[in-house]
């Protein structure tokens, strides 16, 4: 934990920056793997050198955030908090901002978006199996859920013993926006698309005001591939359960869990895609829409933002 704090930049070793670069019609495409997703950087330039630089910058920032916030890495900030046994853990400004954002989402959703609810994953296995957990198992875990029991200050976070944090629901979108911010500082004149597995941010409009065309996952069209959406600037994010669900006695259980009941949300859409100013905003709106279950469309319509819902 202390070691973690000593290296806030978390600079990943050079060897891990395995990026590839290809020239495409009108732009360069940089790719790498991070956060368990294929990551793509579309750069409107012919300058190979610049494109490589931008892709490497994106890759190192993505890996830095992954290292810092993955609950699967023993040396991450999240692992340090999760193994703190109720003691306060010192946090840096970035972690404070991320947890404050999670707090805002908790408040806005009246407890439905809760980064302490990931613990339910211990009993729910959304791998296409047909096994439902027992009510007693769920009840045992429900007592370990509740963001309101976490004490957050600008310098420390205190997590009650036995509880766990999982920022997986905001980490990837945050990484996309962070990368987009860094890239626009580095190359303010170039239109760049940051696409981490469907969570997308465009840094600025293209030169001739053409949109970028980006495929988004459409669970109804798996044979035809993806739905192509156009995006001029801003963020786009998708929340869905295309492959993560559980079938029990003919009923489909979504991986979107209600932290109050410990059961999947009833009748959520297969996928929700939202366009907003930032990827983080879009991602949370998509997640909140999923949490509304049958009310997802009504919720999105009331927000006045462009969106796509597939059921």
């Amino acid at each position, binding site marked *: 934990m202390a070691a973690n704090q000593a290296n806030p930049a978390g600079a990943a070793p050079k060897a891990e920056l395995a990026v590839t670069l290809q020239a495409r019609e*009108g*732009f360069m495409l940089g790719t790498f793997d991070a956060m368990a997703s294929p990551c793509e950087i579309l750069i*409107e330039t012919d300058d190979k050198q610049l494109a490589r630089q931008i892709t490497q910058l994106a890759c190192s920032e993505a890996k830095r955030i992954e290292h810092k916030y993955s609950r699967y890495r023993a040396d991450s900030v999240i692992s340090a908090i999760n193994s703190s046994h109720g003691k306060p853990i010192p946090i840096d400004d970035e972690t404070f*901002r*991320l947890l*404050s*954002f999670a707090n*805002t*989402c908790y408040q*806005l*959703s*009246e407890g*439905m978006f809760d980064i302490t609810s990931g613990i339910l994953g211990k009993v729910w296995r959304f791998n296409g199996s047909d096994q439902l957990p027992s009510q007693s198992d769920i009840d045992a875990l429900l007592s370990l859920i509740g963001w309101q029991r976490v004490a957050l200050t600008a310098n420390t976070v205190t997590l009650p013993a036995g509880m766990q944090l999982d920022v997986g629901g905001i980490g990837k979108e*945050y990484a996309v*926006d*962070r990368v987009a*911010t860094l890239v626009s500082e580095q190359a303010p*004149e170039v239109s760049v698309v940051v696409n981490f597995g469907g969570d997308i941010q465009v840094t600025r409009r*293209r*030169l*001739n005001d*053409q*949109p970028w*065309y980006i495929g988004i996952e459409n669970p109804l069209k798996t044979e035809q591939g993806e739905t192509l959406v*156009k995006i001029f600037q*801003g963020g786009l994010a998708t929340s869905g359960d295309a492959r993560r669900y559980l079938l029990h006695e003919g009923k489909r259980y979504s991986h979107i869990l209600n932290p109050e009941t410990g059961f999947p949300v009833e009748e959520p859409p297969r996928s929700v895609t939202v366009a*907003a*100013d*930032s990827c*983080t*905003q879009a991602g*949370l*709106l998509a997640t*909140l829409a999923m*949490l*509304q*279950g049958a*009310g997802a469309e009504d*919720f999105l319509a*009331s*927000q*006045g*933002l*462009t969106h796509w819902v597939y059921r």
Partner: protein
Amino acid sequence: MQLNNKATVASALAGAACALLGTPAAQAEEGMLKDWQFDTAILYYGETDRVSLAEGVINATKTNDDDSIFNVKLVLDTLTGASANGAVAQPYAQTFSRPSGKDGYVVNAGETPLDDTFRDTRVQVSGSWMQPFADTWRATGAVNVSTEYDYLSLGLSGLLEKDLFMRNTTLSAGLSFQFDSINPVGGTPDALTSMLVPTYLGDDNDEGEDEFEWDDDYEEGENKTGSESKTTTDLILGVTQVINRRMLMQFNYGLSVVDGFMTDPYKLLSVVDNAGMTQDIIYEGRPDSRTKQSFFWQTKYALDNAVVDVSYRFATDDWDIDSHTIDSRFRFNLGDNDYIQPHLRYYQQSAAEFYRPFLNQADPLPMYASADYRVGEMTAYTLGLKYGHKMENGHEWAVRAEYYQQDPKNAGFDEPGVLADLDLYPSVKAVILQFNYHF
């Protein structure tokens, strides 16, 4: 789950996301209120010693969730000043009657006759709706109404657009129909009939005003009828092609068919003798049908900090007016928030077959004739500069200053007697000033 104040979730999240990323929240809010956009402009156009025009424009555009666009525009302008009436200058002072037939005006020796009664206010309202459908199609419908003291114009149009090849190509087809009606001050004069001219009595009365006397047998409205109208049907076919990520090209073909009254009821012609002296002043007359074709090519090229926009138009019609227009704009970005844009336009046209700077008494009266310099041979150019600035709140303003000069040319007419020493083709010089505000 019931989210309180559902509609505020998106904006609350926008603010929270900005706090997370350490960027100012104002940027996000601006993006959310962008569905209505307003453009306002005031324009001044002033010709040296002639017409001046002041115009105000308000243009509001709303982009809806389904990408459909509603647009409404209001234009108000007032025109004052003098316009060439079509008669030639003479070595002596000339007297003309005003269009109302109730008064007259005097033009000094050697000067191009200008009618200084022009004073009009025009109100124009137009609206359009663009609806995308079936992913790659767009349909637009528009209506417009424009009224002046003596003029009413009603228009209806439709446009269909189709995107092809990953939206790199757009085909468009448009049809519009316009009805115009004119009810000239003092009635519509019969073509090529004489203008009844009063006798100038001088300005030595009490008020110092010009006084005129009419013949005893003069009747107001003589040789004049009521209102007239014309209809215009336009067809436009176009292709827009993205050449590469920096270059865009557009080709349009236009066919325009006009039927009805196209004579300018306020324009005159001098009938001169072999010595070039005016013997009669008659009203002009133009054909009542006109078919015009135009070919338009435009290219926009984006450089790193500049945009080049060049276009060429060729138009030809069955009045024998062929015109060429070259229009170019170069926009240079000065940083992120400012730009300057020089503008250069060159225009050239040949004269209509019925254009006559004057008529010769010895020649038989033609079927149609007009001395209006606007249907004569001419070249014109515009030189301009625009400066635009985007403010911190996202609003934009721009100022534009332009100089316009129109040089009518002699399309091969002999100038008998005294006309040889007079300037029959004076240039028209004008300045244009415009201020735009976009929010």
